[in-house]
């Protein structure tokens, strides 16, 4: 019987070795170690061995034989599967560079991009964001900003008027400053707000001016806000938005709605100055128009153009380019 076992093992091992694929191996498994396999049949004959010791010994041999065959089978199956996956992967090669298409993603407008960047910096500095209407009343655009009717400073802006029952009382806002008044009226101080938005001037479009453009205004109202706080906030913004190697300076100027008033310039690392915008302490008359007591509250405001930021950031020569809405232009700026 020992010889029979050895022969069956040899035969099974030969058969395993001769099988080439995982699939045919799987089909083979019953015929190698199953009940009907030569080894299985030998196992069923064990009971006929009378001598207990002999039966145990043969049983042990038979068990070992089956383990040998199963191990060979498992090894062979692993080899086959590995080879087959190898072959599959070899077959399935793809040129990935064919598959990397250009993005079909769209773009936000440069002005939106600049606005969002500015908003994010100011939010980081503790500001909220306020909005207001683009068509405004004379009151909000001028009168509440310390420019009563026939105030000569009104001619600082070329105003577009909108038809209305009371002629001249409705304007396309010439700046974002009217939102200051609305915020003062609607919010409860302390106020730390920026107000981005679209503004309008009766200007013929050229490389640096558009009749429709965008500004961002800042307003801080709190107890004991001073000119030093204005200068410090402008400086903090300058560093946060442009970079740590930029600095800022304020120099005297004139706006009807702030006093003291200033222009603010920022200085590049190379020492050159860029005029950025206007600012100042909110004029007491403006605080009053916003319903606040100038003896209790003080504050500052600042404002500058957004379009110009985008123009300089992307080295755009002509502002009008930004408003052609030509997708070939817009798609350049992710």
């Amino acid at each position, binding site marked *: 019987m020992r010889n029979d076992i050895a022969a069956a093992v040899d035969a099974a091992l030969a058969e395993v070795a001769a099988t080439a694929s995982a699939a045919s191996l799987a089909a083979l498994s019953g015929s190698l170690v199953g009940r009907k396999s030569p080894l299985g049949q030998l196992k069923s004959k064990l009971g006929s061995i009378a001598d207990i010791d002999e039966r145990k010994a043969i049983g042990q041999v038979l068990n070992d034989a089956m383990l040998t065959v199963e191990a060979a089978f498992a090894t062979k199956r692993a080899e086959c599967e590995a080879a087959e996956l190898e072959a599959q992967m070899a077959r399935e090669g793809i040129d990935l560079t064919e598959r990397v298409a250009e993005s079909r993603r*769209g*773009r*936000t*407008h440069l002005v*939106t991009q600049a606005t969002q960047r500015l*908003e994010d910096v*100011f*939010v980081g500095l503790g*500001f*909220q*964001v306020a909005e207001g*209407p*683009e*068509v*405004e*009343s004379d009151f909000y655009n001028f009168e509440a900003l310390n420019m009563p009717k026939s105030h*000569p*400073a009104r001619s600082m802006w070329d105003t*577009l008027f*909108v*038809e*209305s029952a*009371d*002629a001249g009382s*409705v304007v*396309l806002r010439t700046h974002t400053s009217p939102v200051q008044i609305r915020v003062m009226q609607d919010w409860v101080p302390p*106020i*730390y707000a920026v107000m981005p938005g*679209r503004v309008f001037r*009766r200007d*013929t479009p050229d490389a640096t001016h558009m*009749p*429709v453009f965008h500004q961002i205004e800042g307003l*801080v109202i*709190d107890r004991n806000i*001073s*000119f*030093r*706080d204005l*200068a*410090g*906030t402008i400086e903090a913004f300058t560093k946060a938005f442009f970079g740590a190697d930029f600095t800022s*300076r*304020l*120099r*005297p100027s*004139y706006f009807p709605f702030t*006093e*003291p*008033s*200033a222009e603010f310039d920022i200085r590049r690392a190379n020492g050159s100055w860029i005029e950025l915008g206007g600012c100042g*302490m909110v004029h007491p008359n403006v605080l009053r128009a916003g319903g606040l007591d100038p003896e209790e509250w003080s504050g500052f405001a600042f404002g500058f153009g957004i379009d110009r930021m985008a123009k300089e950031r992307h080295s755009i020569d002509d502002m009008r380019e*930004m*408003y*052609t*809405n*030509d*997708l*070939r232009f817009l*798609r350049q700026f992710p």
Partner: protein
Amino acid sequence: MKVLLSWLNEFADFSDDVDVLVDELTALGMPVEETIFAGTKVPGVVVAQVLRTERHPDAEKVHRVYLTTDGSNELHVWCGAFNMKAGDKVPLAKLGTRMPDGREILRRGILGIDSEGMCCSAQELDLNDDHGGILILPADLPLGADVFDALGVTTDIVFDLDLTRNRPDCWGHMGVARDLAARLRRPVGTDSVGESSHPLHPLSIDIPDEASCGRFTATVVKNIRVTQSPQWLQDRIARSGMRPINNIVDASNYVMLERNQPTHAYDLRSVESGFRVRFAKVGETLVTLDGATRELHGADIVIANGADVAVGLGGVMGGLDSEVVGSTTAIALEVAWFPPDTVNESAARHGLRSEASARFERGADPWGLEAGAWRFIEILRLTCPNLEVHGAPQVTVNGACPPPSTDVVLRLAQVERILGVPLTSRQVADLIEPIGYRCAGEGTKITVSIPSWRPDSTSEIDVIEEVARHYGYEALGKSVPNSTVHGRLSGVQQRRRLVHSVLTEGGWSEAMPNPFLDPGAAKLAGVDDALQLAIVNPLVAEESMLRVSLRPGLLRSLAYNQSHRVEGIHLYEVGHVYPRGANALPDEEEMLCVMSLDETDGELAALRSWSLLVDALSFGAQIDAKSTPPGYHPGRSATLRRGKQVIGAMGELSPVVLRNHGVAGRVSCLELSLGVVLREEPKPVAAKVVSRFPSSDIDLAFVVAESVAAADIHRGLKSAAGNLAVSLELFDVYRGKGVQEGARSLAYRLRLQAPDRTLTDDEVAGIRAKCIAAAEKLGARLR
């Protein structure tokens, strides 16, 4: 305003480095736009005399000029100006001269005849802006002499200042010098008052309309001669941007440029009867100095003589008949103060904005009139040493005149509160007294007297600004406020950003078309223009209406891109529309418009944005396919509703609209009231447990008439399936063989699942039957 360093130096010592002065002027709020080095000698330009001129038959635009620089040798040049005649002396740039504009004078001729130099205009030599012809030199200049030396041209440094409109005092050199000297802690010279040399020549001065003039002075000066001003004075006037005329006009302009004080000299013969200052009468006319006949308006200020005949338009321009002429030997000098608004309106009405009117508009000093008159006489005496002053200026003043000074109370605590720096009363006085503000009192409050030349300064905050300016903005330092507010975007703003990112991720790019439209643009885009508002003063008619819809603008952008052969046109805009409302202001609203040029018929690419937005923003609306929004394709569009409220539209744009815009193909569009959508804050979603039990799918295909919306079938199935339905998907739409004309097959997959058990076959069959019944009720037939 052009300011000359030599002139500033007459008031204080400014021998500093030019860069320092530029920085200090900027720090005072008078930024220097340009620094010009004037009167720089051009070596090689000499005095020459014209001998004769000669036309050439083949040259129309030039002639030959024969000159001599030594009285014997003859030179000839080609010249394009014809204003000289034989005997005139002119500047000749000799060969090899390098002109101020950089070009070199070469022996280059025309018609084979060379040119031995160039005759120069005043502008070519940077002497003044006169380019009307060749500069004719005074006859007494020696031949061959350097022109600059012979004329006594002075050199100077000119600062072109960008002045703010609140500082009228700086429209004169004296004001700039006062500010600059204060900043540099330099003493400023004081005005000397002149003296009358002869008995008073009385002139009556009457101001019947007090509102027309607050203060008026007249001074009589005799024994004068009209001549040229000295060269240095002419240089100053020219470098300040004005034209030297004669000694009288130049003296007047000189005083104005020096102290922001306009003056006007009349020939005494025309005002011997005195002055009357009043508003113009109905129908009154005046021939002004420029020769124009002016119809006067009831709000124009008239200077009339004692016979009530108008001799000048007050604050704007003098009359022609009273002008100083060559034969004038005696003048009456008017120095007056007129109300700024009145002069402003008068100048605007007549389109006559002069250097004088501009100064009255900003505000001249009503109490500087006498000093102006004395200064005029002092300047005139340079050319008329024997002039006679017949009495000190004769003054009339009334209630319309601002006071000589204005007092305001300045609280030192307020100075610290606004500027952030504590200052003593002594420190404040040291800062603002040098610019003419007078401080009185000690302690926490002081009284500040503001001088009459600072009409902009009337309140405590105005004084604080002066303190800040002279303390130095930079010196005040920087601090950051201690805010208790935390920065954030509002919910609306966060959701607006989500709209931008959803759309850009979806392939749409943001456009910003002009919100101003042509009057016909709305109609062409199929938009109802009943509520469209007009701009009263548009730049151009094509941009004269305020949009009531984003569609016309975005369609134009789409058409532009298509005509430039751009691939993949997917655009959107987020922007305001401004329809007329019930109140004074329009019913302004924020809108979204998404537009795609479809690549295939029926693609409706823009509609994909609807699903993306609904999902991202968690909002819903009814898609009402039965009502066609204006401007859309009737069979391919829907109105978006919330109950009765229309919140938008979507679908394919009408072919008529596309044809109007020259767009080929098909365009899908979504329009949405963004305001409505963004204002809704979605509630946080409460989590539902995901069932661990097996699910069962039911596939159902129905034949549905085209007239029945898929959304209705969807809604019917969903409600029939009840709460065991976890999803319902329309996975196939089929038209063609096997389905009759006018209908299509809609195939749905319904997945059922219970949270607590495995569904039985009977339960699934029951729901299936209910769904079929519900669909059939809507007219669908199971395939």
